[in-house]
């Protein structure tokens, strides 16, 4: 127990134990420079989920671009009706469809259309949403009112429902057309997110500082506001890619997606439902491929969100 006098005495710490650095606020020059994007990469790099989903996505992309590397069997020629719905055999690991075609080969070749529609639609939505959202958020006023109302109108229509109606009157159903139709009803989501992010980025002090430096409004939007507002859009786009692939499958399932000649997972799932009781594996394989693809994009979206959300990063 220290005596009571110790409490009122003037205590001074031993100088050797508490050395005072002579310089104030010096820069630690030993540390490596790290940018915000560099930080995000560092954070993603450490997550097993990131590598798992990335490897899966790369694999799916390779399959989609070079299907012939994975299957020598033709998916739609030389199908023999006697093979209809028969189970796996040598050279045909997943058996045959109702038409007698190789299931494995169809799934491999069907990837292309699904992935293409997903990427095209995401790209269109991202560009359209970012441009509209950025203009509305940054310039505000009448332009904001006009663009936001237009976005609201499209936002009010359910994507798949709108797509069904629109596609039924279109003469042509190429992947590009399907992607365009899907993005027509999905861009307002991105535009809204972008508008909100731009609104908060444009009120930052560095924007005011740049204005005072003489930077023009448009250059501020391009050089300061956009880069600082883009992160949430990237996150949502990663997730959207998955949902677009599902949407394409849904449309194909309903028979109004890609034209009958084109192979796609949705169309195959639709055809397999007819024999779901006799040959469930014919339904299962394309469904699993679809689910796995969507899942890997969703997982990637999750990792990207964690990496780009500064609050989530601070917690770790």
């Amino acid at each position, binding site marked *: 127990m220290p005596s009571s006098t110790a409490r009122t005495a*003037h205590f001074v710490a031993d*100088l050797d134990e508490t050395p*005072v650095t002579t310089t104030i606020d010096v*820069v630690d020059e030993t540390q490596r420079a*790290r940018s*915000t994007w560099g930080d995000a990469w560092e954070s993603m790099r450490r997550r097993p989920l990131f590598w798992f989903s990335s490897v899966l996505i790369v694999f799916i992309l390779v399959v989609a671009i070079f299907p012939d590397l994975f299957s020598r069997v033709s998916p739609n020629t030389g199908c023999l009706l006697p093979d209809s719905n028969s189970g796996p055999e040598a050279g045909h690991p997943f058996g045959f469809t109702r038409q007698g075609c190789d299931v494995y080969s169809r799934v491999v070749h069907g990837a292309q259309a699904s992935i293409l529609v997903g990427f095209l639609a995401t790209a269109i939505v991202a560009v359209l949403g970012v441009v509209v959202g950025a203009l509305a958020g940054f310039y505000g006023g009448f332009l904001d009112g006009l663009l936001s109302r237009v976005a609201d109108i499209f936002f009010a229509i359910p994507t798949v429902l709108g797509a069904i109606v629109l596609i039924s009157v279109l003469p042509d159903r190429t992947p590009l057309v399907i992607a365009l139709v899907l993005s027509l009803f999905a861009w307002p989501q991105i535009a809204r997110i972008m508008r909100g992010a731009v609104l908060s980025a444009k009120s*930052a*002090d560095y924007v005011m500082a740049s204005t005072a*430096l003489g930077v023009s409004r448009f250059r501020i939007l391009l050089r300061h506001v956009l880069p600082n507002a883009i992160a949430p859009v990237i996150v949502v786009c990663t997730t959207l890619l998955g949902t677009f692939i599902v949407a394409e499958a849904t449309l194909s399932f309903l028979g109004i997606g890609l034209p009958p000649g084109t192979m796609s997972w949705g169309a195959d799932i639709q055809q397999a439902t007819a024999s779901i009781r006799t040959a469930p594996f014919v339904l299962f394989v394309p469904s699993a491929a679809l689910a796995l693809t969507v899942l890997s994009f969703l997982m990637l979206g999750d990792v990207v969100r964690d990496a780009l959300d500064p609050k989530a990063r601070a917690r770790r």
Partner: protein
Amino acid sequence: MTQQETAPAATARRAGAAPLLQIRGLEVGFRTQGGFVPAVRGVDITLESGGTLAIVGESGSGKSTTAQSIIGLLPGTGQVTAGEIMFDGRDLTKLPESELQDVRGRLIGYVPQDPMSNLNPVWNIGFQVEEAIKANNVAQGRAARQRTIEVLQEAGLRDAGSRLKQYPHQFSGGMRQRVLIGIGLSSRPDLLIADEPTSALDVTVQKTILDHLDTLTRDYGTSVLFITHDLGLAVERAEQLVVMYKGRVVEAGPSREILANPLHPYTQRLVAAAPSLASRRIQSARRPETTRHLDISAVGSIDEALIARADARESAPAKELIRVSDVSKVYRIRQGGFRHTELKAVDEVSFGIDRGTTTALVGESGSGKSTVAKLVLQLESITSGSISVDGKDVARLKGKDLLDFRRRVQPVFQDPYGSLDPLYNVGKTIAEPLEVHDVGDATSRRARVRELLDQVALPTSMVDRYPNELSGGQRQRIAIARALALKPDVIVLDEAVSALDVLVQGQVLNLLTDLQAELGLTYLFITHDLAVVRLIADNVCVMQSGRIVETATTDEVFDAPKTEYTKRLLEAIPGADFQFGR
């Protein structure tokens, strides 16, 4: 050591010689990705029953962590690794969570720093106070409601009964802090921990709140533990002082004695850097006879040529560079529907600034001082009146002339965390004005960036660093370097040092003074901190609700204030009359 004691025994003990709070050898650390980081390293603190103690130190010194470990509310991965916190005969570090919960709130009250974020915006004030009262078992049911009103009245809310149903956003910052003090004191705790309780408030509000806290705690016999960075506040409100540095106590004892006669070199430096009304303007090399004992940046050599140039400038008749005449700014505020109300933020303000001098614009929040800064910078349009720089009316500038004006008048803003683009590295940030104004080529720009970093005393290796890696002071120096890039005549500093620790603040103020002497800069310095004004300004304009109420030289304003308002502002500065031992 007794862990479990019955209440009467504890009270008896307290009546004796044992202190209310005794921290011995406290060690606290945080687990991070890079390993275990110690934050508090062997701290001893003793607080008598009914006494007041202040822990001072800069950010990162461990003062808040110490306070948080007392009430067992360490954030995130923090944990107490050694030592004991004896409170009223019990060691709080060994208490199970359930018992600690009882101590927290009922026996130890806590007033947090930020009144803006520490009240839940979706519940009304009455509910939040009542919740605290019920949780601490002070009263229940109808009695709790009655007690709520009492607590708020005690906290200085006059019409407490009718304001119970109001929400936090309907209260001013000062009022909210009163509510938080009311909650903290609602159960008549033995100890109140006030963590920077007034650092977000204006000085006059701060004074009322602290006076009020004094009265309440004296009436109840509550001990108070202040956590603060303000030495003036510490000496005025606390009997005992503990100075912390890098997680250790470097000096402790009676606050007046320590601050009048600081013995540890760190305390000496803190005291030397603390701006107070007794301080004098920081002199740069241009007035050599005063530099030796006043210049805390220890600028060694005195450049003869520089002094000669400064002398020549000073002997020449002062030339007015900025003239603000009868300037008003009116904001239209939408009132729902199509109705508008008008808010006169700046009301017929006039003043002039001579070339090469510093004019400070002081006032409390809402006085319109920052709006004047934005008007001078032409970031907002002037409603009526005119501002001219070097004889040119700034409101009429367009295109090339406006760009030229931007080159000559540069800003440095308050928030060092907000004014730099997080995606731009230091080199890109400083080079941006050069690019925009098409100065030089890539090579010469790089050279200029290095030169500027040198001017603000930062290593040139910093060019590829990003703002998130820098401290507040470093960021502010980058912002100053950016402002200097185009060799401006005028720099508008809007609360440029308010967010910084005292030592860093002193360093930045010195830098500004040196740069002024070297480059002949003219400063418009906007601040709420009168003590800082004394360190840097030649002339002062005091603003109150949009108007300038007093304009004079710095010495006149401080030694012989003419208006009531200025006097009140000066009196409210904590520790104003205390003579720090420098």
